[in-house]
């Protein structure tokens, strides 16, 4: 069994203290639930940090607040708490579904909202033990110079597979980021670069302290995903849809997809699909948008082709069901 490398553990109780320690320790990593970080540290993935900064003792980062129109979620809120929150379940069902669908109960009890939004990108050539990666000459994402998924590629295709990002992207999600210049907010989509290696667009010291979502009146939203085992595992494809009906016409449509690209994709040009009914002709145009914007590569044991098809089927199904009757999805 691989051991964790030595590090110092810092436990700030305010955002400002966390930032100060982050600035003092440029080679630090942020600890949320640890359900991905601890695994990766043990496997020697990424630089061994001098310090871990535990973000779970900061009160303001553990709060869910808001109403049926707008919601603010602290980055250290546990996924189990988000999934079980009455306000979230009542007014943001797609978000509750996404949180409830992450891994298994043991992970959801520790894993945090910020951790899931900033989840490291994944690839079968990367999420492996040290000896496995060493014997394969490492890879472009960490330690090597060659991408084994696309050998001629100059960019890394490791896949983003967080479940919350798509559910928040369709609800106009915005992140609150703290850094050297104080606090700033940015659309959630701008949190992500489009490179699987340096997948976040944050400065070295910056971190996410909360995320907001909005539920416009009449908006129906849901999340669903496909994975190898239905009750545990990262998504092979996950889709969030939010739509509004205008009589018998599609009034608004937002779609976001995880598990395919190195970033969570907020589908572009969906406005062009609005204004008519939901019929097969519309769904075929929808398929074409998805096909053009999703770029699943062979970063999992299933083929990229399969994951793109799976995302398309899920997206179609959610649009139809939400349009027909406010589908609330699987609950458990």
């Amino acid at each position, binding site marked *: *069994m691989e051991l964790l490398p030595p*590090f*110092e*553990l810092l436990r700030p109780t305010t955002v400002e203290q966390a930032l100060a320690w982050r600035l003092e320790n440029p080679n630090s990593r942020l600890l949320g639930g640890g359900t991905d970080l*601890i695994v990766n540290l043990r496997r020697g993935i990424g630089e061994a940090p001098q310090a871990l900064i535990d973000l779970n003792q900061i009160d303001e980062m553990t709060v869910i607040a808001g109403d049926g129109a707008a919601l603010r979620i602290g980055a250290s809120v546990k996924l189990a708490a988000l999934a079980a929150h009455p306000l979230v379940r009542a007014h943001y069902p797609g978000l509750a579904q996404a949180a409830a669908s992450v891994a298994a109960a043991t*992970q959801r009890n*520790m894993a945090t909202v910020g951790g899931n939004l900033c989840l490291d990108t994944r690839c079968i050539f990367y999420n492996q033990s040290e000896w496995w990666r060493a014997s394969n000459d490492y890879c472009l994402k960490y330690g090597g110079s060659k991408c084994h998924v696309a050998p001629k590629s100059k960019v890394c295709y490791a896949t983003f597979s967080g479940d919350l990002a798509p559910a928040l992207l369709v609800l106009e999600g915005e992140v609150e980021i703290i850094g050297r210049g104080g606090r700033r907010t940015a659309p959630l989509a701008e949190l992500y670069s489009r490179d699987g290696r340096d997948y976040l667009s944050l400065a070295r010291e910056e971190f996410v302290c909360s995320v907001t979502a909005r539920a416009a009146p009449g908006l129906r939203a849901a999340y669903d995903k496909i994975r190898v085992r239905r009750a545990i595992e990262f998504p092979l494809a996950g889709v969030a849809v939010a739509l509004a009906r205008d009589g018998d016409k599609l009034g608004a449509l937002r779609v976001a997809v995880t598990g395919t690209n190195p970033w969570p994709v907020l589908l572009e040009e969906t406005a062009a699909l609005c204004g008519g009914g939901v019929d097969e002709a519309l769904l075929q145009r929808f398929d074409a948008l998805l096909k053009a914007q999703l770029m699943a590569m062979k970063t999992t044991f299933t083929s990229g082709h399969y994951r793109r098809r799976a995302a398309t089927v899920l997206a179609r199904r959610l649009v139809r069901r939400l349009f027909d009757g406010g589908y609330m999805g699987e609950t458990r």
Partner: protein
Amino acid sequence: MAKYHVSTSINDEAVEFLCEPQQTLLDVLRDELQLFGSKEGCSSGDCGACSVMLDGRLVCACLVLGVEAEGRAVETIEGMAKGDQLHPLQQSFLEEAALQCGVCTPGILIAAKALLERNPNPTETEVRYWLAGNLCRCTGYDKIVRSVLAVAEEMRGG
């Protein structure tokens, strides 16, 4: 690196220990406190053999740092039986032969107890979903699920 002094409660008993920051709660339980009931399977949160309760929440002890137990209440398999009195789940696992090699058993018992505490009337599907994070390579789950459902019924007074 300096050791951390941690004050915690383990199975309702106040416990203090010293640990290094990189020691997980599982390392502490096994190596420092000689509580060998929680097992190390995968060390990556996949197998659930190290499942323990932390402040009433089911977690993988291999992914929690020992320092994170500061001020919290930890429950392990060692606290499940009260003296010679086995917990109904333990008794049922024996009666239904819901174990073979036994490595996954402590984690599954802790997870099953956590389920029945929050949902005393689970369906078979709910039991299977809840225990999805606990892998068993011997018994094939059927007897485990049957045991949990039998105890749920018994505890409801059925």
